[in-house]
């Protein structure tokens, strides 16, 4: 049933999927706190201070869960993938060590920030958000650079199955790193912006159209408006990079079975590995060739052109890719709608349909993040280190991983229930908007 490798992969994927939901907010909220408290300082408007205070409590809980779930991950490297770590620890350990410092800094200043509201001067308190912001983004940068290395290994040579001549700096600055790091870090701001906006959209739909709710909504959406277009541009760059450097992943994303000149862009559709085609997709002629190679006649390699035991499962890559792109497009649409109408009418007064759309967009950042990571991780299979070490060679020799999988499944269920009880408990008075994002659990 669940052999060691399958269990280890499921456990790793589950743990990462859990962790990333919290850290996305852990990266995004410090920016929002910086803005809200900064505006409060500049304008003296106490509403923004109140906003920052309420967000702080959420940040504290989510950060705690992010920290414990991250600890699970660092142990899992050893528990599940000792062979992989034996090979790559010396190569990619360095960014993780730097990440350790970033966590430290973030944890320290978050502690000061949460508990220091009345012990520090308002200015000093506000300034605490700066190291939080920087270190959270830095931890994302470091850890994603390690993941990029798994996709584009660099900075070492292999002699007799051992890595020699290791250059940790070159490993960190591998080819995939700039693309993955940019796209993966921006995602956190997009996601946080929409998640926070969704909370206030819910409150406004319920009739609480207070000045406070409006201002909070605008602040959150301003963040979203800045980062969503950047996110989509960087996603396009990532895809183009893959077309050149990881063509099997690209082919799987696009559901491209056969090598083709002037390949169409397939929207939706059901890839069928048996029939070797993607059925019922909306095909836009030549667009994939244009997007990937800036040439309508360019040849796009299909999955057929690779050794068949070294290609990913196309379904696990194509569907998540579609989900990510659809989510991104919808988010861009909604935020454009919001500011477009506000600009047109010269005031902020979103109608019911717009608010509903904002609520619908609220969880989509998380959805896109999970989907995007599925593209990256499933698209790398069957390799744990691309073209170098296969995932099934890397797992622990220990039995009982299936049991561990079960245990941690229950752990995550318990954590999710606990968080749900904590964050979603009915808020005391109607004047007080529910401030928490329900979708982060």
């Amino acid at each position, binding site marked *: 049933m669940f052999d060691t490798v399958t269990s280890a992969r499921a456990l790793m994927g589950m743990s990462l999927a859990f962790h990333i939901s919290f850290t996305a907010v852990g990266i995004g909220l410090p920016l929002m706190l910086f803005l809200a408290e900064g505006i409060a300082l500049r304008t003296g408007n106490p509403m923004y201070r109140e906003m920052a205070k309420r967000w702080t*409590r959420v940040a*504290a*809980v989510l950060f705690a869960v992010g920290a414990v779930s991250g600890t699970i991950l660092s*142990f899992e490297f050893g528990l599940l993938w000792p062979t992989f770590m034996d090979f790559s620890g*010396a190569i990619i*350990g360095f960014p993780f060590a730097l990440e350790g410092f970033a966590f430290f800094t973030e944890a*320290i*200043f978050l*502690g000061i920030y949460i508990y220091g509201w009345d012990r520090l001067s308002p200015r000093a308190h506000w300034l605490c958000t700066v190291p939080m912001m920087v270190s959270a983004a830095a931890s994302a940068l470091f850890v994603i650079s390690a993941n990029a290395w798994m996709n584009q290994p660099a900075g070492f040579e292999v002699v007799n199955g051992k890595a020699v001549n290791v250059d940790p700096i070159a490993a960190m600055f591998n080819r995939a790193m700039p693309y993955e790091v940019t796209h993966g870090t921006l995602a956190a701001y997009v996601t946080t912006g929409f998640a926070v906006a969704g909370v206030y959209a819910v409150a406004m739909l319920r009739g609480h159209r207070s000045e406070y709710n409006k201002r909070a909504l605008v602040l959150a959406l301003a963040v979203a408006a800045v980062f969503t277009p950047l996110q989509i541009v960087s996603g396009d760059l990532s895809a183009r990079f893959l077309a050149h450097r990881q063509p099997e992943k690209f082919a799987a994303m696009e559901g491209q079975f056969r090598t083709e000149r002037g390949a169409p862009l397939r929207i939706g559709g059901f890839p069928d590995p048996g029939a070797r085609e993607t059925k019922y997709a909306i095909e836009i002629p030549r667009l994939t060739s244009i997007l990937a190679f800036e040439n309508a006649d360019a040849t796009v390699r299909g999955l057929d052109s690779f050794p068949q035991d070294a290609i990913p499962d196309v379904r696990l890559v194509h569907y998540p890719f579609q989900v990510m792109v659809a989510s991104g497009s919808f988010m861009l649409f909604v935020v454009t709608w919001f500011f477009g109408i506000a600009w047109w009418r010269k005031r902020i007064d979103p109608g019911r349909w717009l608010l509903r759309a904002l609520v619908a967009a609220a969880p989509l950042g998380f959805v896109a993040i999970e989907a995007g990571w599925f593209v990256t991780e499933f698209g790398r299979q069957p390799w744990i280190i691309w073209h170098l070490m296969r995932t099934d060679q890397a797992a622990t020799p220990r039995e009982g991983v299936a049991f561990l999988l079960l245990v941690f499944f229950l752990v995550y269920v318990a954590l999710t229930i606990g968080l749900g009880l904590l964050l979603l408990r009915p808020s*005391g008075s109607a004047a007080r908007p529910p401030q928490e994002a329900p979708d982060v659990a």
Partner: protein
Amino acid sequence: MSLEVLAAGVVLIGLIAYAMFAGADFGGGVWTALAWGPRARVQREAIFRAMGPVWETNHVWLILIVVTLFTAFPRAFGDLFTALFIPLSIALIGIVFRGAAFAFRHYGSEGGARLPATGIVFSAASILTPLTMGMALGAIAGGQITIRGGQVATELYEPWLRPFSIVCGLIGVAMCGFLTASYMTTRTGGALREDFRNRALAASLVLGGLTTAAIPVAYADARPFFDRLGSPAPIAVMSAAVAMGVASLVVLWRRWYALAPPVAAGTVALVIAAWGAVQYPYFILPDERIDSVAAGHATLVAFLVSLPIGALILIPSLVLLYYTFSERTDRPAPEGPPS
């Protein structure tokens, strides 16, 4: 000193710091479980309030240890997690539940929602984690993990479910309790302070008893460890640990409270340093030496260079953190975190 040994020193310092700081948080769970008498509730609350701002930072020392292990000693990292699969999994589950229970309880009670059973989970996990970590360290030092042809040769339960490891696990729990009670004497006053003083005294006696008992147990069950005890370095560090332990008894007995935290921390640091001195120059006794499992030169250089640079940011930040939150916890807080 070679780069390998320096990196191993970082692991040891990480362990000591983790024990000194996070150990006190685990001890908080121990005393939450053991709170008794008329002031049980006040004791629990004082502990909770002291931990709030610092526990997450304290926790990061563990991350530093793990990261140092896999960066500088990737072979040993893989082998340790393979050999100690079960105790490390249990320790991990303990860490997760402890952190979550603390956070949920803490922020929950501020918002007026008390989640059921978080107190019990918090205490149970706080005991389980130092116990299993102590057992793991005992297995490493006891020479119980054998490696043949690059593969871990011991069975799942063999290296750690045995008398010497169990004594080490108990030492871990006792250390945590000792640290918390000692630290709390400076953060409380009056009858509450007396409570913590008595607990610190009791814990230090237990700790002394357990560390003494560990020696005959090692003779019977962990010969490689016992055989190395007689060399000069372990003897020197162990004598210092004993002296420090006695000093902490005196300090507590005479109620020289200002001295209690540093002396308690020093005792714990020296006990762990003694463990390191016995191990040296082995990483995993008796098959893996520090230099045979270390990463290559370039990695060690990059890693070791990053440490002082990181420390330049960290140390002032840590000082700021502990300074901001160092006052007594038995008075009403000026203002807690916002709710």
